[in-house]
């Protein structure tokens, strides 16, 4: 569904992504894990057209999206849920959801139907639909952000740190939601620091380190990989022959 090849990205003169190639198949959950500053968020931003890439190609459903504006990419069905500033605080929950559908207003699925689906997934949003988003708790805001993205009826969702700053019980609820969205047919590219939970629900994953992909495998393989543990905890040996 998504094929990324040799992407390079910079912040000024500093290179943050180095020839990244990866792919996501339809109906997969693929995760990108790596330490802070590894380039995960930048990679999502490049794919969704929010950050320029210097080289490489990014093909979404057979369309080269390089050079396309971000809203055009959303209209193709590739929607990112950002890490922060996910919702518009002064607007009500309902208005936020309406905004999410804006770019896909000519869709086959009627607006009301989409709203209904979101409320089924997140009953709490239905209860709070008249309240300003700024009044919601962290977990509720995260759900609203996801709901807003779903209003665009995306074919593929890119989630940036959906568990960030959430209480542990909400975190597992969040992962359950991601998994159930996937079961309903959504393709998901997930960026997370919470590697364990993420890999547990992922079909496949890539490990990013200093702007490079250094490991790939199935979720289970990566979960059991010593290298992955080191990617988060740092090198735990001095000599290769240590046991």
């Amino acid at each position, binding site marked *: 569904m998504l*094929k990324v*090849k*040799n992407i*390079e990205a910079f912040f000024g003169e500093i290179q943050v992504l*180095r*020839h990244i*190639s*990866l*792919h996501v198949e339809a109906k997969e959950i693929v995760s990108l894990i790596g330490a802070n500053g590894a380039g995960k968020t930048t990679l999502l931003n490049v794919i969704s057209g929010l950050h320029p890439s210097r*080289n490489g190609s990014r093909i979404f459903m057979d369309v080269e999206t390089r050079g396309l504006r971000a809203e055009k990419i959303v209209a193709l069905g590739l929607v990112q849920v950002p890490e922060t500033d996910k919702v518009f605080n002064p607007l009500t929950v309902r208005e936020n959801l309406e905004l999410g559908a804006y770019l896909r207003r000519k869709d086959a699925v009627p607006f009301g139907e989409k709203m209904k689906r979101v409320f089924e997934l997140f009953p709490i949003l239905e209860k709070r639909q008249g309240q300003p988003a700024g009044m919601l708790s962290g977990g509720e805001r995260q759900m609203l952000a996801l709901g807003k993205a779903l209003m665009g009826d995306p074919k593929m969702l890119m989630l940036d740190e959906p568990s960030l700053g959430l209480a542990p019980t909400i975190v597992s609820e969040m992962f359950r939601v991601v998994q159930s969205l996937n079961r309903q047919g959504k393709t998901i590219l997930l960026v997370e620091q919470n590697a364990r939970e993420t890999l547990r629900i992922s079909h496949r994953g890539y490990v990013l380190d200093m702007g*490079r*992909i*250094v*490991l*790939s*495998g199935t979720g289970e*393989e990566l979960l*059991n*990989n*010593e*290298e992955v543990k080191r990617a988060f905890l740092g090198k735990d*040996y001095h*000599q*290769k*022959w*240590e*046991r």
Partner: protein
Amino acid sequence: MPILNPNIETMSRKELLELQLERLQIVVNQAYSNVDFYRKKFDEAGLSPDEIKTLDDLRRISFTTRKDLMDNYPYGMFAVPLRDVVRLQFPLGMYGNPIVIGYTREDLKMWNELVARVMVAIGINEHDIIQVAFNYGLFIGAVRFNQSAELIGAAVIPTSIASGEVQVKIMQDFRSTVLTSAPSFAIHIMETMQKKEMDPKTLSLRIGLFGAESWPEEVRQALESYFNIQAYEIFGVTELIEPGVAGECMAKNGLHVFEDHFLPEIIDPNTGEVLGEGREGELVLTTLTNRAYPLLRYRTSDVTSLTSEVCPCGRTLARMSKVLKRTDQMVCVRGINVFPEKVKEVLSGFEGVGPGCSLVTQGKRGMNDHLTIRVEASPGILQAREEEKTSLRQKIQLAFRRAVGIGVEIEFVREV
């Protein structure tokens, strides 16, 4: 025709090449950051891992040779710390420093799958009883058949190097349906039966899976017609995985290389130039997923050619032709590799013999089952009494058995 992993084995060439590039970039990143040998190699060539943007860019990396592996003995080529390694292997019979190959748990899992892919491709299933008559001591890949058979639910009888008669008795009594061994050993079993005028119809064999040495088509025909089986080949490279790099399918028109894990190239062994499809040359392999022991452009010394035409079996994986030649002087005797360098090394432990020597192999049907080493000897030895010569000969033979693992004949000559 049955396929174990159709997602991969029948993937479109375009998608396969994309997967290879993705994995190649990862292995290059790993090799560069974790293996000093490769970091130095890249830095000295002024090459950055970031410059590998296409599969063709691979050609910018220089070859890795057996000598590199020996020079970096023991753990210099490892890309992971030893604590991630669950298997260490070293092939016997190597000269100089041995080669130590490490595998992580994931590497072994991949290896298991690849051998199982070959088993499934040639029609082995959970109803089969596989008799593994490889030398478990000298051929380190033998144990892989056990694990891969378990993966597909077949039963395994590791008969190892039991004598021909015992092999036949077990085949009869246990109703083995698959025989896997070095082809020369299968011929030996066949001859044992012929000598005793046993009826091959008393066996339940239906498939033969052979490898670890080169065997011409006429050997396949002889085994197929005598045992009334379908005989197939499995191929491997000791320094990567052996067996399991490639294997035949029922179409018997070449060995499918498992390109999702190994990237093959064919080069001119003299110039290093990459040769196109169909051209014969030295097989060079790059590991795409090996975690513990990544090898970039490893020169295998095996001579073959490649084609990526789709096979009637439906697999899109490229096929290599049977390996019948080597680019080095190594000889293979009953499935055991013998390097002339190793022979010289053994001879250096004795006074008055060597270093001049030549390896003379004898065998039937293009395979070797006897090795005679003709050794240059001093006049003192040549003129010595017969008992003295015999005693020295026996000492040298014992040294070879210890060093290489097989019995050889020794002949003293003035010059070779």
